[in-house]
């Protein structure tokens, strides 16, 4: 353009718009000053605007190349290309310690119809009912004949049902997908898992306490539970509950060394897949939320405390001839021996009198401190929202000290008791109970927290002997599982009424540990208001109703837990668990 301008300066061409018909011989145009100035102005203007335009186009061009080649060229496509990374559900899975799925989220389809598009409502209804037998043909036909544009037919179909309906090929019937929380094991671990509401928001159990983590992480949460043990515990408890017509039952299997809750069940339970239909009684977690006066199992703590503080030794004893009368209370023995009893005998025959005197000699303040160290005076630190606060006496009078000595007047949750007993038998270390499984590979970099020492190893060793004695020769004989050296303590508590205690309604329990030479697992079984049967001669005490359950659980759980049978009569075992009873105690009494 500029070149032509330059040329135009030298030769003035004939103007093109002059038509050839009128063409005249060219006459040189007279150059005058005015034309020159005008031309010069035009040229300069063109030059300037041309430069500006070229610069503009250059900028646009550079930017174009920059965007097309150098800036994240894939960016605009990311929106419509699905990534093939891990499948992400709205809520992560919950698995057991072996990776077995306990809770998962599934895409489910809900069936709806547009009645205006339905050609033959009766036929469509007939076909739908053939695929979904749960529906009623009359209702469906009525819905399909209505004049609306949208009717729900059935929510949350299984993939198979959905496929069946697709195969029917009914026009006007469509699906809407949504996410549903599914618990494949049904009621198995209902109280630990909890449940979610219709928007998949955790309302109870682990679902609630880990709600945020389950929503934000894709990785599943692994629990310390083992479905096999959980099943075992649950069926044994259910059997005991129906045999003894109990109104409730709870059981816990606890790893004594690490505080892992291997199994925990509370009966009656419910199906979290249909939690809306569960009653409050079914939802109630008796293992962690319920607090009970658990009775004689507390003698484990009383004896440990007295031995650890040096108030008594294994050779000492108390006179249990007569019931103790303190103001308006009378403390008497259930298995009364009416004579002087040594400490092992008090434990073995579960003497209330002896334990009360032992607790009195230790004193209220020391007792309170000891129990609080064992975590029995504060809510259990477990990862569940349903945790019961223990009921402690206020003020803590001497009579309370004595009754707590044999497990009345202080209500704790079964879990607290199991944790306390695990620290007594494991060598004196209190471990925080946990439901969250620590992956073995993280163990190296992130070792598990060490628990606090709550009593000396010697005391723990003495208690192991005492607990073994109870099963070998005392009130807990029915808990024996040959080969596994079960030790434990029976407990039978009368339920508190508005006025005093009810002799008819009992809380019968047994807390056991095995193998007693080096306890690895604690098993607790509690039955709420069991009734005696002819087989138990009408007794409904812990030794008769709860101990046999522990025996069966230990026998079947030990192989799963990797605990092999040992020779109960081996000299080393006998020496370790040997205990000296006073001469008077040689006469071995059962119940």
């Amino acid at each position, binding site marked *: 353009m500029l070149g032509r301008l330059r040329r135009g300066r030298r030769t003035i061409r004939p103007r093109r718009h002059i038509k050839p018909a009128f063409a005249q011989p060219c006459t040189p145009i007279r150059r005058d000053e005015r034309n020159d100035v005008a031309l010069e102005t035009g040229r300069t203007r063109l030059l300037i605007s041309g430069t500006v335009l070229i610069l503009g186009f250059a900028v646009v061009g550079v930017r174009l190349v920059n965007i097309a080649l150098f800036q994240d060229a894939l960016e605009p496509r990311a929106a419509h290309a699905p990534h093939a990374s891990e499948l992400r559900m709205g809520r992560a899975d919950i698995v057991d310690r072996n990776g077995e799925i306990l809770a998962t989220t599934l895409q489910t389809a809900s069936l709806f119809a547009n009645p205006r598009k339905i050609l033959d409502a009766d036929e469509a209804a007939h076909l739908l009912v053939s695929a979904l037998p749960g529906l009623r043909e009359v209702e469906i036909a009525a819905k399909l004949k209505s004049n609306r544009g949208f009717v729900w037919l059935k929510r949350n179909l299984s993939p198979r049902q959905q496929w069946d309906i697709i195969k029917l090929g009914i026009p006007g019937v469509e699906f809407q997908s949504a996410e549903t929380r599914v618990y494949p094991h049904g009621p198995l671990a209902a109280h630990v898992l909890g449940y979610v509401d219709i928007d998949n928001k955790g309302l109870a159990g682990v679902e609630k306490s880990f709600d945020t983590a389950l929503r934000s992480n894709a990785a599943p949460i692994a629990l310390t539970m083992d479905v096999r043990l959980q099943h075992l515990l649950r069926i044994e408890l259910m059997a005991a509950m129906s045999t003894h017509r109990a109104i409730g039952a709870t059981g816990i299997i606890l790893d004594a060394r690490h505080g892992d809750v291997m199994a925990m069940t509370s009966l009656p339970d419910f199906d979290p897949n249909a939690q809306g239909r569960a009653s409050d009684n079914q939802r109630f977690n008796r293992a962690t939320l319920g607090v009970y006066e658990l009775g004689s199992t507390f003698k484990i703590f009383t004896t440990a405390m007295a031995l650890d503080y040096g108030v008594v030794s294994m050779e000492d004893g108390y006179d249990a001839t007569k019931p103790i009368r303190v103001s308006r209370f009378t403390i008497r023995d259930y298995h009364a021996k009416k004579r002087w009893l040594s400490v092992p005998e008090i434990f073995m025959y579960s003497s209330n009198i002896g334990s009360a005197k032992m607790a009195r000699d230790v004193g209220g303040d020391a007792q309170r401190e000891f129990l609080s160290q064992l975590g029995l005076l504060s809510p259990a630190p477990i990862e569940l929202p349903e945790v019961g606060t223990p009921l402690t006496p206020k003020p803590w009078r001497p009579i309370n000290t004595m009754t707590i000595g044999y497990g009345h007047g202080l209500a704790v949750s079964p879990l607290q008791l199991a944790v306390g007993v695990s620290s007594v038998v494991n060598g004196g270390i209190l471990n925080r109970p946990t439901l969250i499984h620590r992956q073995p590979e993280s163990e190296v970099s992130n070792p598990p927290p060490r628990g606090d020492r709550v009593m000396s190893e010697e005391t723990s060793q003495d208690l192991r002997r005492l607990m073994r004695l109870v099963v070998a020769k005392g009130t807990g004989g029915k808990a024996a599982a040959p*080969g596994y050296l079960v030790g434990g303590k029976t407990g039978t508590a009368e339920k508190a009424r508005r006025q005093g205690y009810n002799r008819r309604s009992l809380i019968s329990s047994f807390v056991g540990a095995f193998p007693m030479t080096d306890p690895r697992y604690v098993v607790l079984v509690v039955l709420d208001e069991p009734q005696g049967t002819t087989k138990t001669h009408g007794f409904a005490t812990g030794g008769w109703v709860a101990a046999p359950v522990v025996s069966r659980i230990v026998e079947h759980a030990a192989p799963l837990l990797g605990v092999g049978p040992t020779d*109960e009569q081996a000299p080393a075992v006998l020496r370790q668990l040997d205990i000296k009873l006073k001469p008077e105690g040689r006469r071995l009494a059962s119940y």
Partner: protein
Amino acid sequence: MKAFAAAVYVCLASVTGFALFHITYKVEQLEAQLSQLNKEILLEQNTVHVLKAEWSFLSRPERIDELSRKMLPGLHPLQTRQIGDLDSLPTRDIDFGGVGGVQQSAAPLAPYRPVSARSGSARTASTRSVSPQATE
């Protein structure tokens, strides 16, 4: 010469243009393929997810318990006396029958240790000499 240069330029331009379009279409095609594959992978993952849940449902201990009761009436829960360890196994005299002319030693591989867990009978067995049948 001028015409030749022009022809070369036109050739180059058309080759470049063709290559450009070819590559563009190829990329688009690959992208569509990728997106299709990704969709399929997601679908498969979803299927695997559902199958896992179904497996968990079908393998729940309650059901296995019921099925084994029904289908395997001869199978009973493991009893303590059925569990043993290597040490409780008696050693057996092994005679290789002198294969290749080498007579193997007939001595037991490890000393026999009785299991007193099997109480009385095992005790008496231990006082007897090494016997391959031992205990039970």
